[in-house]
């Protein structure tokens, strides 16, 4: 019975590793690969993830194999079989854990800071495009400042979805808000930094674009921001990852990365629609 345990642990460990190594569900064409990175900061995250995968994967396989091997070898022995002590005893193992895992964790911790810093410790460039994002049950809306480069002030009491006043603008009294452009998709130009200023209208939400390697919560009452640069033209899904109510699964929008010409044309068209 101990040998059966050993075999099963061994097989499970191997089978578990296959989809990780092949990035697919046992050759079925279902891919588990990370989607192509379209950001300037994402490669650091991807590298960190793949380094961690190697360390975690080796630790996983080594521990499972040793477990299987020892159970195979030492289960159901004769009642008078000699009891042996692992060479080096507890002291050796404690030192091994401290040195190996300590170094491993220290390395991951220090290296990982670089990727984190790329996203959070550098301010957005002054010439970054300013876009405001608002999350509400169950839609994202985006606002561009328009020709004057200024966002109009927000008045939550003026929010009126029936009249498409999603942000609560007051164009009657507020000049800055008159040329603000409000859309349901996030269009951005390629290779230019975007400074996304985020606020929630009602409850907590999150902004997650896999290809951008960006995930950031919207927290009611807090004005948060992220900045990123997209490097590939295309349409990508923005989804909500913070449980926000019954429509959570269906709360999404599109990130539309455009060439500079297309972006200018898009902006002109939207301005004329407002």
């Amino acid at each position, binding site marked *: *019975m101990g040998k059966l*345990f050993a075999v*099963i*642990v061994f097989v499970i460990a191997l089978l*578990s590793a296959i989809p990780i190594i092949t990035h697919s*569900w046992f050759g079925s064409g*279902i891919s*588990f690969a*990370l989607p192509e990175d379209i950001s300037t900061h994402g490669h650091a*995250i991807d590298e960190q993830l793949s380094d*961690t995968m190697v360390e975690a*994967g080796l630790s*996983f396989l080594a521990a*499972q194999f040793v*477990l299987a091997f020892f*159970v195979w070898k*030492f*289960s*159901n*022995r004769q009642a008078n079989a000699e*009891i*042996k002590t*692992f060479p080096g*005893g*507890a002291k050796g*193992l*404690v030192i*091994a*854990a*401290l040195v190996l895992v300590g170094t491993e*964790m*220290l390395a*991951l*911790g220090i290296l*990982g800071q*670089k990727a*984190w810093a790329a996203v959070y410790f550098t301010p957005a460039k002054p010439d970054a495009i300013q876009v405001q994002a608002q999350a509400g*049950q169950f839609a994202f809306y985006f606002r561009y400042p328009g020709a004057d480069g200024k966002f109009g002030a927000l008045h*939550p*009491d003026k*929010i*009126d979805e029936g009249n498409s006043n999603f942000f*609560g603008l007051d164009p009657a009294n507020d000049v800055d808000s008159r040329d603000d452009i409000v859309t349901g998709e996030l269009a951005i130009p390629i290779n230019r930094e975007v400074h996304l200023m985020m606020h929630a*209208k009602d409850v*907590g939400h*999150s902004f*997650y674009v896999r290809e951008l*390697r960006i*995930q950031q*919560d919207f927290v009611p*009452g*807090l004005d948060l921001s992220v900045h990123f640069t997209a490097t590939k033209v295309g349409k990508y*899904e923005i989804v909500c*990852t913070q*449980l*926000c*109510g*019954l429509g*959570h*699964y269906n709360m999404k929008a599109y990130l539309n990365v455009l060439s500079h010409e297309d972006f200018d044309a898009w902006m002109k068209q939207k301005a004329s629609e407002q």
Partner: protein
Amino acid sequence: MSDGAVQAVPTTADVVHHHQPPQGFIRKYVFSLDHKVIGKQYYALALVAVFTGMVLSWLMRIHLVWPNWPIPGLGLLSKAGAPGGVMTPEYYLSLLTMHGTLMVFFVLTNAPFAAFGNYFLPIQIGAEDMAFPRFNMMSFWTTFLAFCILIAAFFVGDGPPIAGWTSYAPLSAVGADAGPGQGFGQTLWGLSIFVFCIASLLGSLNFIATTLDLRTKGMTLSRMPICTWAWFITSCIALLAFAVLLPACLLLILDRVAGTSFFIPAGLVISDRLQPHSGGSPLLWQHLFWFFGHPEVYIAILPAMGIVSHILINSMRRPLLSHRVIIYCMMGIGFLSYMVWGHHMFVSGMNPFSSLMFSFPTLVITIPATIMTLIWLGSLYGSRLRITAASLFALGFVSMFVSGGVSGFFLAQPSIDIYLHATYFVVGHFHMVMGVAAIFGVFAGTYFWFPKMTGHMMNESLGKLHFWLTFIGTYCIFMPFHYLGLAGNVRRYSAFVDDFLVPLIPVHRFITIAALCTGAAQLIFLYNLIHSRFRGAPAPDNPWECTSLEWIMPSPPPFDNFGGKHVVVYHDPYQYGVKSSTGDYLMQNSPEQVEA
């Protein structure tokens, strides 16, 4: 001080209240003061909760992959939530919330800690009962009340709560405006957890006082079995953790019913209505919740580590390479557990510098966890391992703990968490490391201690069959969760409608089938448990040739444990692999001296 003076001042062990045998059905089985009955009551409650939680997970898994299939009988449970048996998105979220809450609080906290701890901690230290038997009874019945309040949320008008077991504010705080399920059901959730916290605080105090005060003669701290240590350390963690969740729940309830704004800021427009709140902080709830929430993970896993160590040692017929190192590691994990709560909040909008501060101790916690794993593995070397249902589950625990543990390497790092946060990777990680691993500890404990608790042996063949199906089944369920997470599969979705999620549905279908089969395999366990309770072969006093004090008494133990006598302890808890008059082991209370 003369001998006479010593005798005049009774030691703590001498003043334990000697019970009279309980009279009548109510005192014997319902409002019992006997820690053993209370332990069994906790176990029974956990059993009801775990099967309820499991059925909820079945319903969720079925809905995810066959969304339009009318589930027979579901329509009867909730006409509004599942008209004709097809559940609405909000009902899915209700089941998710109730599943998580039942499992974390009423199963993972109750079964390994409160149930086994209550039954065996006093016995293993040679005490006649807990330090405060009335408190103990209150703890259980308060927990039961909390359970009833939570279950009542299923049946309230606008449906059970939908904010998840973490109940993030303001979704959980603003009331019915936030949508169905956020009305009275959510208030009941808050109340249930509030009451549960009171019960857990009473229980933890009792465990701590019992361990410190009621140890019998010769039972020094270092002679306590590892599981006793685990329960003791867990009670210290629980005392601090629940003490924070208790007021947090109170504040949440006040926000909901008394118009306060602890967790609700100004200017929120929900369901077209400007909310009459201002000044609160949603992040405050997250901090308070996770300050409890992360230690809670260790409240679930430490007792399982203790139980598994105890059983492994007995099955290996040798002590671990180091008793002390394991205990220090458990203490280290308990200590560090209070410094890592922020790793649940890397992308929450808290100061990004603090993410690094939380990341470091999270990575450091890997070290004691690795040391423990290496000690278990290293102790297997050269042992005489006996394979029983209990030892299989203990070995399965080690395998699960490793599998769930290594995915923690990823989630401890804020940069990687940007991609993996709120995906199925996280779901796979915590189900394996705190859910399944802790449940394996409970299964191991059940197969091991059932003979003592009931006086009957369990069926070993059925136990082993149960192990194989559960072990393979849980890997089939939870390993693929990690792969889905790498593909960016977001959790807590009631349906997968996004372009990038639709291709992953076949994997979800595989998981659902695995979950249904693994769940069905638990009926073997239930049958074995009930059948053996009445028809199992009579259990000898010490069927596993174990050394600790619970095995010196008859199976099942009498109401007063040691018959009013004080046991004297002469040895460390794990005298295995020796040559004694009893065989290859020596009971803790045996005055016999042997050479190792």
